[in-house]
């Protein structure tokens, strides 16, 4: 069972987390094919993937950069880096 060694909460088993999917930013202006590609397609090649992980007991969100080939967390991403603005 995988362990995530997280900032603030320390090493925790994966069973304490909910997976939130890949970090992505929706295109605010996109034509129909581009929007459909955004919604339905994902990059599946092995590599570094930024992912959302929710720690249920504390309610904290983490963004991890994971090497999907070795299944190793390379680093934790500052939440500021994944922010984007939405229209009011």
């Amino acid at each position, binding site marked *: 069972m*995988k362990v995530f060694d997280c900032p603030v909460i320390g090493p925790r*088993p994966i069973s304490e987390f*909910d997976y939130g999917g890949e970090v992505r930013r*929706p295109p*605010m202006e996109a034509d129909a094919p581009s929007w459909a590609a955004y919604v*339905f397609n994902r990059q599946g090649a092995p590599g570094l993937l930024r992912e959302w992980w929710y720690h249920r007991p504390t309610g904290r969100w983490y963004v991890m950069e994971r090497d999907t080939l070795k299944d190793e967390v390379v680093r934790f991403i500052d939440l500021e880096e994944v922010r984007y*603005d939405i229209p009011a």
Partner: protein
Amino acid sequence: MTSRLDPQPLEWLDRSETLSFEFEGKAFTGFAGDSISSALLASGQTLLGRSFKYHRPRGVVTLANHDVNALFQSSEEPNIRGDITPLTAGMSLTACNVNGSLEKDRDQIIGTLSRFLPVGFYYKTFHNPKKLFPMWERVIREKAGLGTIDTRWSVRRQAKTYGFCDLLVIGAGASGMQAALSAAEQGLDVVLVDENPQIGGSLDYQLVNEANAAPIRERLKAAVQNHANIRVLPAHLACGWYTDHYVPLLGPNGIIKMRARAVISATGVMEQPAVFRNNDLPGVMMASAAQRLIVRYAVKPGQRGVVLTANSEGYRAALDMVKAGVDVAAVIDMGSANSRGVWADEIRQQGIRVLEQHAVYEAKGKKRLTQIVAAPFDGHTCEPSKAFEIDADLLLMSVGWAPAAQLLYQAGGRLAYDSTLEQLLPQELPEGIFACGRLNGAFTLEQRLADGERAGAEAAVFLKDEALPAELAACRDREAHSHPWPIVDHPGGKNFIDFDEDLQLKDLVNAAKEGFDNIELMKRFSTVGMGPSQGKHANMNGIRVLAAVTGRSIDQTGSTTARPMFHPVPVQALAGRRFRPERLTAMHQWHLDNGARMMEAGAWLRPEYYLPTSETGVSDAAGAGNLSIREQAILREVQAVRTGLGLIDVSTLGKIEVMGPDAGKLLDGSYTMRMSNIKQDMTRYALMVDESGVIVDDGIAARVAEDRFYVSATTSHADATFRTLSRHIVEWGLDVRLVNRTGSLAAMNLAGPHARKLLAPLTDIDLSEENFPYLGFKEGNLCDVPVRLIRVGFVGELGYEIHLPVASAQRVWNTLMEQGAEYGIRPFGVEAQRVLRLEKGHIIVGQDTDGLTNPFEANMPWAVPLKSKPWFTGKPSLALLKARCQRTLRGFMLPKGYSGELPKECHLLIDSGDIAGRITSIAYSPSLGRYIGLAMVDQPLADSDRLYQVRVDSGALIPLEPCATPFYDAEGKRQTVDLTEVA
């Protein structure tokens, strides 16, 4: 005649306790500490089983749980492994896989038919003529089983615990104990585990007669057991290696899920058989099996023995046989005896015959070995013309070893073939994984101790985060302990590679010749390594054969994937105690006390309907015909809500407080409708879709203050909705706080024409229509409890949803039930609520919608403000989907008085022979006196005015009459009923 020896120095027996047991109808005795097999052998019973396919007589071969020759059946359990299962008093056992008795197994005839059962025969024979195959299938299935299961078994669960350590050392032999000590001396918290009931491993059974080993053995055992940093766990099996050094340890009381930060595998090596004709006769066994018999169980393995060897430890075993009183007739060395060391010298000094460059060509005997046939051997083949016989009832095989590297493989380690040692050795190990001892090619006692010390030190350095390069080859031996080809061909065959599966040499050769010449294909076609031992005694020889046939090296041939569990683990240990959280509302006990039948809604328990025991009699909704008691109860509840008053516990709803300057912006972005312009003290329907436009949740959002909202979510999606909102706060950089109040607030819905009348005197909130209109939200006090009231319309009557602290909920519930008695108040459950909302045509997310339904299909275009709202999650998808709605939810009815076969949820609509939709909800409506429902209907059927046809269970097509929704109170007048009663 007994084969029991005098007490041995390291025996596992407690001779003060004699145990009686039965085997195959005969009475036997043994000692506490015996395994079943050792007790049988001590009494002279050498025939222990019949082989899987050919029903050949079988006895002890590895005695290490690397074979299943000795597989027994008791009244409670099937497939008991005799070699390693401790004897207990009163056991009554028979052999598995016999037809009649073990002695006179009627199925031994199959052995003589073996030429009709070549490798892969089930793919080739028995299917012509086709109509006979069902009979053959039955016969084969019956013959192919092993033990019998008692279907009246009772549930037994074992405990499971979590364990933690710095370093897990697997295997408490010489190198394992040394590694544990070295690491513990460095301050590490060490767990040392061994699958055997006692620690020591081959340091005991192989070196018991080595004088210089004794002080080392005593020192190591005492040291590991007394060290403050070492926890020793004998009788615990390391089942497998899982991510991040998670290793389940199976012990007698259940599984310990051990999390280590590093793992040392000191699991040793598994002795491999020599392959020659009739090498499976009882009396032919591994040298280490004979040593285990003597040392652990004080059992003399035979009277007159021969040792077949290709290494020095074969001579050590021969010396041990002599000491145990076995007449050693000869040592047959497959190579030269010159490099075999001091033990070979001693054998020769004792005048025992040593035959160099020889091998065993054939073993002879009926149910037990009586004679071996030896012949000169050039390293690959025998010369049968020069063969000769030696009488013996015992043959020890000491021709080689395979590493017990299964956990290393599972952890991602790689092994490579070392031609000096003629053994696969660890070549590349992942971080935190270490190997030592014979597994790592260290064979002499000095090498093993040094290798253990190295591994312990390396683990310590790794865990303390210091850098030191690993030097894997440090303590490896230079002498080969395995023969590269311990295989002798014979025209008569029956030279077995895999004893579990009855596979002979020619089976593998033929499989390769048929084109199954890749190790994975070879395994699956021939079944080598697929038996209960999973190739522990067979895979190495299988690889050697395949390499030879295909002309490839051992490394090129590769090996199949080793998967957990290392030995079989009973399901009762894996099941263990499971965590199945149950969540109850504040009124739970009241529900039980008042006849509620509870149902599961996720982790929650909710009343499905109420059936007070005092109630009898028929429902007055008699128009529905013959109904079950359950259905009558539900109808009564529905009627109460429509004509009087009903009270339902909706505490399971999600309840989220949203506060802060950006609260409105958060909700605007997360839900389809605009929330930021909800007026003070009003609510709005809150529909949530995902990025693809699919409905994921719905609820109500209420404005509490300028920067504060109160949002509800469905029971099953509450946690996910909270999670989504909290993520949006991070993603969009919003200044918002969320509090999940689902558990701390209870909620109940009081619905019915008399709702206002009942509540008004109990609350300080002004319930008049101007002050508190439909969809309004108010805070105040009810029965002196601070509450929030929401006027909701889900069930279609005047109704107030009351949200209040859990600590006060029961008291308020009781007051409402008491005060409401004069209005005929009834509690109602989930089922009644479903009927009520269906009569209003209201959807339930997850019931009338599925994983693909968007708001247009659910008849909710009004919830999708594409023009007036610049952006929300899923808006671009909905903009595209609006024009291509391919199916829609439609209402339908069955004729009044319908008494035919009832359509059910998910029954399909059929149009011109094609599937054209399905029913999502259907129920009897007492308010309309007929069955109504909702169906997801494909276009163009949905927009036409044709009748729908639904296919029911029997296959018949039933017509459904499409109709508009809501079915009941289309103008919503029930929400403003009873206006004049309140000032």
